[in-house]
């Protein structure tokens, strides 16, 4: 079985068991199975011709230079490094995402390019080397000066704005990657039954469902 086939098989068996537990509705089971096959079909399949054309245009050229991308990669891994739970930003493909999004949202181009320049000029002044060629300690020293907006020196304002943008792009790119979604623990986007907040969580928050709610709402077996 190739990867796609095996994925499909896993998905299908989960669905049918989930649904068979509480509904003998073969029609909707079949429909759900169809839905689940679709995400595997092709990456652009939901797009209109106008959108495909735009995608082609956006991906047909590069925006960042190799040197710029190297700096972006270093910065993104400083922002989101690997830890016990998951890998680093670059392992999750964040630099590629940033390259794409600045072409898709051109309003980021000037802030990113001028921010990278600013960083290199600072670095050249201080160490006579561009940022990407500094050792780790030097890089972190420079980052420390721009990573904390409330204590950064006034003359670092430009760097602070750039680093905040880098931080935001990195976080968005990381936590929307497969690695990041697993890390954050989002477990939805799949067929299931909403049975309400788990009992232990209700207890933890001192909440209960009212009798009215339990009587009126869709009832699946809450403990199944």
């Amino acid at each position, binding site marked *: 079985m190739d990867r796609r086939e095996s994925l499909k098989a896993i998905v299908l068996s989960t669905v049918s068991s989930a649904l068979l537990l509480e509904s003998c*509705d073969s*029609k*909707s089971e079949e429909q*759900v199975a*169809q*839905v*689940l096959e*679709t*995400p595997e079909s092709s990456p652009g*399949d*939901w797009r*209109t011709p106008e*959108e495909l054309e735009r995608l082609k245009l956006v*991906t047909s050229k590069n925006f960042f230079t190799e040197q710029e991308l190297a700096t972006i990669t270093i910065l993104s891994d*400083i*922002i*989101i*490094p690997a*830890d016990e*739970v998951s890998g680093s930003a670059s392992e999750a*493909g964040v630099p590629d995402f940033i390259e794409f*999004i600045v072409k*898709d949202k051109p309003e980021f181009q000037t802030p990113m390019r001028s921010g990278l320049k600013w960083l290199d000029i600072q670095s050249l002044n201080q160490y006579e080397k561009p940022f990407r060629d500094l050792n780790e300690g030097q890089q972190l020293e420079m*980052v420390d000066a721009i990573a*904390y*907006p*409330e*204590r950064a020196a006034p003359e670092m304002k430009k760097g602070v704005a750039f680093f*905040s943008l880098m*931080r935001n792009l990195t*976080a*968005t*790119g990381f*936590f*929307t990657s*497969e690695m*990041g*979604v697993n890390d*954050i*623990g*989002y*477990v*939805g*986007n*799949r*067929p299931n*039954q*909403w049975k*309400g*907040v788990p009992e*232990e*969580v209700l207890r*933890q*928050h001192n*909440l209960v*469902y009212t009798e009215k*709610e339990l009587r*009126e709402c*869709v*009832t699946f077996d809450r403990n199944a």
Partner: protein
Amino acid sequence: MADYQIKEEPKQYDAVIIGSGAGGGMAAYVLANAGLKVCLLEAGAMYDPATDSAQLKNPWESPRRGASTKFRPFGDFDGCYWGWEIDGEPYTQAEGTSWDWWRARMLGGRTNHWGRISLRFGPKDFKHRSIDGLGEDWPIGYEDVKPYYDKVDRLIGVFGTNEGLENEPDGIFLPPPLPRLHELKIKKAAQGIGIPVIPSRLSILTKKINDERGQCFYCAQCGRSCKVYADFSSGSCLVKPAVATGNVDVIPNAMAREVVTDSEGLATGVSYVNKDDMLDYQVNGRVVILAASACESARLLLNSVSRRHPNGLANSSDVVGKYLHDSTGASVSGVLPELMGRKRYNEDGVGGMHVYTPWWLDNKKLDFPRGYHIEYWGGMQQPAYGFGWGVENLNGKLQVNGKTKEAGGYGKSLKEDYRFMYGASVGMAGRGEAIAFESNYCEIDPNVVDKYGIPVLRFNVKYSDYEINQAKHMNQTFKEILHEMGAIITSGGDAGPHNNWGLQNPGKIIHEAGTVRMGNDPKKSALNKWSQAHDCKNLFCVDGGQFVSQGDKNITWTIMALSMRASEYIVDQMKKQNI
């Protein structure tokens, strides 16, 4: 793509319908099932969620991670083609005014994405002039529409609960889903300060209602349009079964230019531009039904100038385009420290809120005349573009796992912050009634045409103190609820007179209505109480155009009830040979 489209056919139809959204889809459904031959003109492409929706895509399957584009302003996976701007189809605004116009271009119109909030208007909503002297009463009342609301509930399916509230009529409801954690917290906090919170009313099938449509499996992605048709969209739930009768021809990519009339002034058909070859065609029918959305239907009428109708069709009253209004909207959101570091589980639920707040106060005691309802959101949603954005404004204000942090930062410590904060957001928005003023209108811009050569609309809409005062009340109420919950407010907290208390631009809430309004007096209205033009008896308008006012409810359930009512009237009048 769906396979129920036809090639051009010179055929005499019983009815030509312009637009396949909520209003047009319902008209096609009723007329086709009554055996009438229907031509449905749709400016957009064919669309069937079963094959064309991105329902269960993961964020990384979009290189932009679900960020918006002009093609999909609500995000890359969203179910709506086009929105605030359409290439080659501009609109303009009179100086000093603003109107944001959302236009879908696809089979099913805006109902592929819409929020599925399905509220009936109450008795007061049809007669508000009698209560506060503002605007106009409808020529019909709740009792006239109730049978159609009942039929729409049964045909399409909506969940909710019968609460016996005076102006939030009971309906025929499927069971609602249980509230999520943040919704329980909202409910507790709001009820503590006298604000009711009840199960929401959404047209999503929590139980199966027929063999053509599946049952909801709780993926929270209704906005992408449901592949098993467990939520309502006009294309899958009305147009598809209408086509299955064999009585409906859908012509996609057909941009209606104007309604054609004869020397008697009666409608004979519609001329349209075929967007594929850019040539003009005409299709003829015994009746013409406008359902292109309130503003577009007004545009079509104003562009249908003839010797018999020199001021535009159905416009001897000069009201077409006037009384344009949208729901008001303002929101406040924040994060809830109590929800930080929370246990993970699948809390997707349906694609929308599980609870809401209907209007609960008496306007006689307030400085604004009409009410609003409150919509809620929050919790552990699928990460998308924008995730974690602005963390530097937030993490410095928190105790993260017991430690005070400095705003901003990087590294493992920052990574922990994102995890800690995930799922703790909560927000609320008011959707209120604006007064339909004659001075708020759209008209034909004499200087601008679109790429088909059709003159475009120029908007002239301004909010009054009524709406601004209402937004202020929303803002203060939402802050109170959030305060009561112990939330940190992250947006909307700084609203004030400088930004009209967060009141959104008119049009932004996407409930356009009032431009072809109904009434008993042909001098003050374009349509009679059957949605039929006073000036042209075989012309009808079944979208939000016919609304006299829009209540503190979202408008689509009423569009569909009125469209069904008008369509049954058309069948009856045709039988009696009156049209």
